[in-house]
């Protein structure tokens, strides 16, 4: 598969930088490029400025777009690159490459979709939920995190979901327990026909197992550390069963991040194939 054909390298203006709980909401103006952004696509951002010792871009899922040429990112300032980004002031011009990667496939007919998010992995699901809702689908959203502060669920985003369920491992918000524990029931109860997921790899793997048991389609946005985001470094590979039946290491920046959860070889992630 080639690189996302709409990807361009531009200087984008940071027009808003707001703290939301433990995360930052960053809004970038990317002009006409916004037309090409699909739910699931990501952006690779140069961090640290000219004299930085950080030489690699940081990749972030795009959570939403709007027709005024802006995109929203939800960033957790955990590492030195994301901390630098979250410290940038409004009006900063930042070197970005976007839109990159595959997007979530949208069913051609209205259906019931179950969206499963872990931590700030929930962010791109809100943009997806809006698209699904516009196309007449019902959206059941199940979000989980270790604790309430790490749940990302903006008020405006909630409107896109027919039902929103929250799970925390420490019981500080919503129901207590893991989001994946509730999935078999949610699928049955709402007759969900497709699952979309985004979050930590362990969660995606658990969702894949449930989707396989219930025999429903599952598209997940995978996460593997990447150096370039444009398919040239070969670091972000995921073992995947291709259409020929062969298991190959595919680049998550080009053949992903959205991949068919049934075909990702979860038991081989991090293993020699």
């Amino acid at each position, binding site marked *: 598969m*080639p*690189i996302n*054909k709409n*990807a361009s*390298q531009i200087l984008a203006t940071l027009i808003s930088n707001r703290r939301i709980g433990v995360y930052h909401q960053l809004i970038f103006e990317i002009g006409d490029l916004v037309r090409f952004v699909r739910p699931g696509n990501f952006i690779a951002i*140069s961090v640290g400025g000219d004299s930085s*010792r*950080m*030489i*690699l*871009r940081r990749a972030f899922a795009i959570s939403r777009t709007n027709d005024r040429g802006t995109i929203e990112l939800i960033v957790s300032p955990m590492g030195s690159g994301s901390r630098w980004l979250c410290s940038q002031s409004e009006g900063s011009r930042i*070197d970005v*490459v976007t839109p990159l990667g595959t997007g979530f496939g949208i069913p051609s007919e209205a259906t019931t979709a179950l969206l499963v998010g872990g931590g700030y992995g929930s962010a791109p699901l809100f943009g997806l939920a809006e698209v699904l809702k516009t196309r007449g689908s019902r959206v059941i959203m199940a979000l989980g995190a270790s604790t309430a502060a790490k749940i990302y669920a903006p008020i405006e985003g909630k409107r896109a979901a027919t039902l929103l369920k929250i799970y925390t491992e420490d019981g500080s918000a919503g129901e207590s327990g893991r989001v994946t524990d509730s999935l078999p029931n949610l699928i049955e109860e709402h007759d969900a026909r497709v699952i979309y997921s985004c979050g930590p790899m362990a969660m995606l793997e658990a969702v894949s197992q449930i989707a396989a048991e219930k025999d429903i389609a599952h598209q997940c946005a995978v996460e*593997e*550390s*990447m*150096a*370039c985001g*444009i*398919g*040239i*470094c*070969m*670091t*972000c*590979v*995921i073992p995947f069963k291709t259409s020929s039946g062969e298991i*190959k*290491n595919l680049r998550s920046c*080009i053949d992903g991040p959205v991949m068919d959860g049934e075909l990702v070889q979860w038991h081989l*992630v*991090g*293993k*020699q*194939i």
Partner: protein
Amino acid sequence: MTLDFGTTLGGAWFPAPIFTASGCASSGKELAQFFPLREIGAVVTKSIMVKARAGRPTPRMAETPSGMLNSIGLQGPGIDAFLIEDIPWLASQGARIIVSIAGETADEFATLARKLRGISGISAIEVNISCPNVENRGLVFACEPTSASEVIKSVRGIVGGELPILAKLTPDVTNIVTIAKAVIDAGADGIAMINTVLGMVINTETMLPHLGGKTGGLSGPAIKPIAIRAIYQVKEALPEVSILGMGGVASGKDAFEMILAGASGVSIGTASFGDPSAVYRIQNELREILTSKGFKSLREAVGYAHRSRGTD
């Protein structure tokens, strides 16, 4: 006065002196979205092996101060698929092509050379005898003059005088000049240097080596002084031999420094990860620097740092 920007490597002529680095441009398609491939010196393709190879397990990379470690382990489609899919596409773009090859034995290198002989549109072969991401350090042919020359001899024997051969060397040796002399004596037309430097990162959370392959190759600006030193030493010992230099070049100024040390061409690797248009940008920056310094040709600047002080 227009600058003569052309260069010669091992007898092959290129209209511009900036190249991609093997393993940092895949087979060129991805970068073609950011600049026209035909305008750079050549695309040096990812080292290709006889058979398809899955490479090492993830994690495959770790960013380090001004650098990164990679542990890919030569993932690739194998020579047959590469010749069918990648070479014709690059040729259709008007790109000049240097094919990088890697093998586990001298015989495998010979097999690869046999497949490449007679393929039109290839400007040169880079013989990668120095990939650090292999299980057995004994397989890093370029660590030892005898094994390095054995590989070069077998490739030379197959391609005859048809295609220039560049031997890719590692700086992880006591005396790189000894290795350079050995590969030139064995029939290499030029030297490509340096490959990544063997390194390791230990994850302080898991308290285990971070990379799936444990060790990896260090690249990026952190290794540039090592590259400059190695190129300077080889140019000093073998002034007639052309060098394709690489190692941490991220700007036109870095490329200029490498040319002063003795490189006739410069490959851009890790910089492309951080900036997809780096190859093109650096080439333009270099052109401006050479012009502003008053050089009439790139050739005049090659090895210019070797003159004695006060001879301007």
